[in-house]
């Protein structure tokens, strides 16, 4: 029903929010979402949060070598995941999207396999942790190189348009990514082709230590859409319903043939940039504490409670169930063991070239 009458206007003065801090629905249209769906959003956010906490333990115990905390991004991630047609649309994510992977339906075991880089990883331990990908779910394999996935996301969208598959290419990235030339060049190509691509910035205002004020003088990330002649939406990404409703509309606009769009979801990164970072070097504790007070999960909990969809009992059940799933999946993933050493020579090409065959022999000899 939303497809025909677009509710949200681009280039809004303030970020679009539908639920206030107290959990009240403040939008000018009826919410109309089924209880299970709303509870599902909460579950996805909670799962993402618990996964983030588990990752910290993986690092502490030396079971993984790198994590990119996503706590604070959960509302944006859960809302986005429900807005696209999972398994049909394509997602081009980045390294801080493990929470999004959960909401997209990637099994915890696969996620841990990737974090461990062992045999449970569908990518055979080829990449550093926090770099997932899934052919089965149409989730493009994450590349460390910031914004390098933007032109491929544009290309996939152009392909979708040429083939008329009715798919949408959705691409996520951070605020720092918007300074890369490839970010601009890729979106510009999708936009001029009117391709069904939606580019989604998770703006947490920091690129490692660099504050957005050193990244660009633009009024907002959404405002950069003017450079491409496409709509730019500025959204409160700590509001899961705002994230969901806007993303759903924007994605359906693209699917309906209205072309490319840019969405800015305002979030905050609670943790350090990564396990290698010390954020106390560049931002005051108070700033972090203040952000945490606006926690997206608690905000949505208040909303659900007001709707009579939440109580402590259910919360505890849900947490216990998720924790159990997470622990079991980690065990299952660990049980899969290492990837074989010589497998490092596979998948360079469909068929190994002679130089790779020679080089594999050197390692075989070495391991004997």
């Amino acid at each position: 029903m939303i497809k025909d009458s677009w509710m949200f206007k681009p280039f809004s003065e303030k970020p679009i929010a539908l639920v206030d801090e107290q959990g009240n629905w403040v939008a000018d249209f009826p919410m109309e979402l089924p209880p299970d769906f709303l509870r599902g959003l909460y579950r996805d956010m909670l799962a993402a949060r618990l996964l983030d906490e588990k990752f910290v333990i993986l690092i502490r115990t030396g079971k993984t070598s790198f994590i990119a905390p996503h706590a604070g991004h959960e509302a944006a991630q859960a809302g986005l995941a429900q807005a696209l047609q999972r398994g049909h649309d394509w997602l081009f994510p980045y390294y801080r999207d493990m929470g999004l992977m959960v909401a997209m339906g990637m099994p915890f075991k696969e996620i841990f396999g990737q974090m461990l880089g062992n045999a449970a990883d569908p990518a055979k331990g080829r990449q550093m942790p926090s770099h997932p990908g899934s052919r089965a779910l149409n989730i493009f394999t994450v590349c460390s190189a910031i914004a390098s996935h933007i032109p491929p996301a544009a290309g996939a969208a152009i392909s979708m348009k040429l083939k008329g598959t009715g798919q949408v290419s959705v691409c996520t990235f951070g605020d720092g990514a918007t300074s890369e030339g490839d970010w601009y060049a890729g979106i510009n190509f999708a936009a001029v082709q009117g391709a069904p691509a939606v580019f989604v910035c998770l703006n947490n205002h920091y690129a490692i230590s660099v504050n957005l004020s050193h990244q660009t003088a633009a009024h907002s990330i959404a405002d950069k859409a003017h450079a491409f002649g496409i709509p730019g939406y500025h959204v409160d990404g700590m509001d899961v319903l705002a994230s969901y409703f806007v993303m759903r509309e924007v994605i359906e606009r693209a699917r309906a043939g209205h072309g490319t769009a840019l969405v800015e979801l305002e979030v905050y990164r609670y943790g350090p940039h990564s396990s290698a970072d010390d954020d106390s070097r560049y931002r005051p504790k108070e700033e972090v504490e203040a952000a945490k007070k606006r926690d997206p999960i608690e905000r949505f909990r208040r909303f659900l409670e007001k709707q009579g969809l939440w109580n402590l009992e259910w919360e505890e059940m849900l947490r216990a169930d998720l924790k159990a799933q997470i622990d079991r999946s980690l065990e299952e993933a660990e049980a899969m063991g290492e990837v074989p050493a010589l497998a490092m020579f596979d998948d360079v090409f469909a068929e190994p070239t002679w130089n790779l065959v020679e080089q594999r022999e050197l390692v075989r000899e070495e391991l004997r």
Partner: protein
Amino acid sequence: MPTLTMIQAINAALDEEMARDARVMVMGEDVGKRGGVFLATEGLQQKYGPDRVMDSPLSEAAIIGAAVGMAAHGMRPVAEIQFADYVFPGFDQLVSQAAKVRYRSGGQFTAPMVVRMPTGGGVKGGHHHSQSPEAHFAHTGGLKTIVVSTPYDTKGLLKSAIRDDDPVVFMEPKRLYRAVKEEVPSEEYLIPIGKAAIRREGNDLTLVSYGGSMIETQKAAEELAGVGISAEVIDLRTVMPWDKETVLGSVAKTGRALVISEAPRMASVASEVAATIAEELLDQLEAPPLRVTGFDMPYPYAQDKLYMPTVTRILNAAKRVLDY
């Protein structure tokens, strides 16, 4: 059998592959209405429409990067970079995305795509219309790189590149685009990637080259024949994976080798071939394998012809290995 120039052979290969496989599409700057600045894609947009023969914005990153996404999504894009010198704004898309998609995803995603580019000097184009950057590609695991030198090979290799399941950089020496015509079958034929061609048989020394320098290399071989020296001439055609077997077989026979390429010398494909010859054939060598290459500097304008290996420089080097 029609006789075609290299540029016509490219056009024919693209036309045949687009007719054969609906997934094949062409994209790049000026490839549409204009038919490409060298007319490689002339007539294709009229025939296949603006969707399958797409004028891109002026961004090599957008071109190569979009090709990666199209390929991952099931198309077979043939991207044109207007000059090899201009691949660098899109270089990250080539080395960080195209070359690594299959590997980093454990084979879940692939990038079957071709990146075509006119390459090499000799056209008074200055250093941004003359460079030969194949070493950058050959040094990048996950890329295959072809440098053609004849119309016949061009058609057969371009078709193989388009059908290959991995990213292929396809380099076309622009000074050869219209240099010669030769008979090129209109029937289907493919030339395998990774197989060199022996252009001339000989026993006294082996001249290994590829691309534009094949011209001077073959001239040099003729001059040598004139003074009773029989040189075997090998055209690598593919520089990664290059045809080690054919090269070593020839040098084992002749005991003498020159590797000739107009690319800069330092850390080049020529260096790779020379190093491999020394590594594997030391005892059969009657002289050191020498390289005749371009120079380690930007390509000049005024001295356009002097930068590339000339027949004289090849003969001077041949003299060294023969008199050794």
